[in-house]
């Protein structure tokens, strides 16, 4: 296995609050990695640093052999890293097909961006996420779950080397979660995927490798069973989740 993303000694603080405290994390090619941790563990901050949204105080991010620490957002995307957001950020005023088309065209030279478009074909990525029949609709008309899929289709159209998904199944129905899990597993056969997730059931069903963050540090790492068996993890995270599940039941 070759390392695709290597994060070393990453530290980020906002005022007196340390969001990330010397995090080391390696993600290998064609891996489906889950990043979990309680609220405030630093999961989204980690993604923000990798994608250039937040600048780290210390540490480095190396992607595919190149140091991308501190690059601006669009340059990180051009380097081959795509991300989604917790609330699906699709362009509501544009059609579903135009959303994907725009994502796919990001490497196009300016003079081609100015040309009139041929709108007759439906991007294949829409087929993949099961939205091809909605290609002509405005993205604003889509349900929450379908927006998440549209966002994934947009990322796939960019053919990134690494996909970062921030809570892709939050707010989805059970059936939608299941379908998203299958989709991610299929995507991970071609692309490396890092998923930030809260949902323990989703994790149990679909994760193969898990990294647990807690208070800005890596607490544990390994396959889902090993991580679940870890006492410290049970204490800070699974224990609480189990309590919550018990309370829900």
């Amino acid at each position, binding site marked *: 296995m070759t390392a695709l993303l290597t994060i070393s000694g990453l530290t980020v603080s906002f005022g007196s609050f340390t969001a990330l405290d010397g995090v080391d994390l390696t993600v290998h090619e064609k891996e489906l990695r889950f990043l979990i941790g309680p609220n405030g563990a630093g999961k989204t901050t980690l993604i923000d640093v990798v994608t250039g949204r937040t600048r780290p105080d210390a540490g480095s991010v190396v992607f595919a052999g190149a140091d991308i620490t501190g690059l601006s957002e669009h340059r990180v995307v051009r380097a081959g890293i795509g991300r989604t957001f917790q609330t699906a950020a699709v*362009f509501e005023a544009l059609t579903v097909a135009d959303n994907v088309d*725009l*994502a796919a065209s990001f490497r196009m030279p300016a003079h081609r961006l100015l040309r009139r478009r041929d709108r007759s074909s439906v991007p294949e990525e829409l087929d993949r996420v*099961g939205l091809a029949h909605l290609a002509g*609709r405005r993205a604003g*008309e889509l349900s929450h779950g*379908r927006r998440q899929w549209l966002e994934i289709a947009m990322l796939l159209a960019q053919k990134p080397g690494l996909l970062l998904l921030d809570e892709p199944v939050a707010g989805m129905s059970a059936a939608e979660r299941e379908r998203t899990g299958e989709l991610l597993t299929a995507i991970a056969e071609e692309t490396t995927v890092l998923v930030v997730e809260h949902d323990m059931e989703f994790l149990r069903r679909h994760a193969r490798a898990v990294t647990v963050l807690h208070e800005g540090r890596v607490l544990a790492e390994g396959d889902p069973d090993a991580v679940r068996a870890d006492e410290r993890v049970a204490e800070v995270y699974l224990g609480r989740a189990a309590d919550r599940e018990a309370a829900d039941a």
Partner: protein
Amino acid sequence: MTTTHAPPPASPAAPAAGRRTVPSALLVAGAAALALAAAPLLLDEFRLGLLTRYLCYAIAAVGIAVAWGRGGMLTLGHGVFFGIGAYAMAAHMTLANTPDGGLPSFMVWNGLEALPALWVPFRSLAATLAAVVLLPGAVALLLGWAVFRRRVRGAYFAILNQALAAAFAILLVGQQHLTGGSSGLTDLPVLAGFDLTAPGAGLWLYALVAAVLLGVWAGYSRLMDSRYGALLVAVRASEERVRFLGYDPTWVKTSAYVLSAVAAGAAGALFVPVTGIITPALVGVIPSIQLVLMAALGGRYSLIGAAVGAVALGAAETAFSETFAGGWLYLQGALFVAVIALAPRGLAGLAESAAAAVRRRASAAPPGAGPGAGHPVPGRKA
């Protein structure tokens, strides 16, 4: 698949949207061209002159629809770009009306003995025609790049523009020896060797302005139909998201700002031969706001809507000023509030809603052809 999905959308025609827009755009273009061709037959010379003036504003309004409507940049200072075009043209026409080797009379009164270097290029018509689009474009390029790169947007951008328009008007008044001060540049009867006071000249000017308007509208509309147009709308919705798609929004916004400045510059340059005058009061804060109001009234999301808004507002101003002088300014303010609150998509939006309602009524007639009936179930994984 599930329970959480939204109900079928209200508009049954939505899936066909991509196909439907092309013929309707052609229809609108045809109707606009026809109306412009018919106007000289229906209006007397005075009214035609007024319409020509409104069409100049319409050219600027089309540009504002691009920057503000599509790109979300509230350009409250377009009087600057309009003014640069107008003053460049007025400088040329002033020199054209001055005997060789002489000085424009306002310069003589200001004690100048030689033509200032700033004025020299405007002796040439070709240089002037280039300047009326290139100068506003260059100013917008520098300003846009500096501002958008620092991620200045929203109200801050609008206020910055507004301040710029105020400063520009003050500068024009202050530099009396170069600009004619607050009385501006007047007495401009000749353009390219044609006497603009001759009978029939008004018709030629009308034809010229109408042609430029159609050209700008057709060119910008086509551009909005490209990926760049979609990108601009995407930037309006979320600059941040566009950045995470690998585009730099700075250039997307700057280029739209430049396009709108170029249209305003051309509009200003045409305004001068049409009205025969340019003053700081015609390019300052209030005209800048009026240009935005025109686009808002007509429909800022629609390029042709903005143009129609310019003509409608101009006609309304003339009609009201003829009856209640002085009340117009208040009415205009009220109109702006009403449009923003009640019809944010302007006249174009009202027209679209009406057309959609008619279509709905028509498609509701045949029974059993409901929109949700034939939706395929999405494949689990293709």
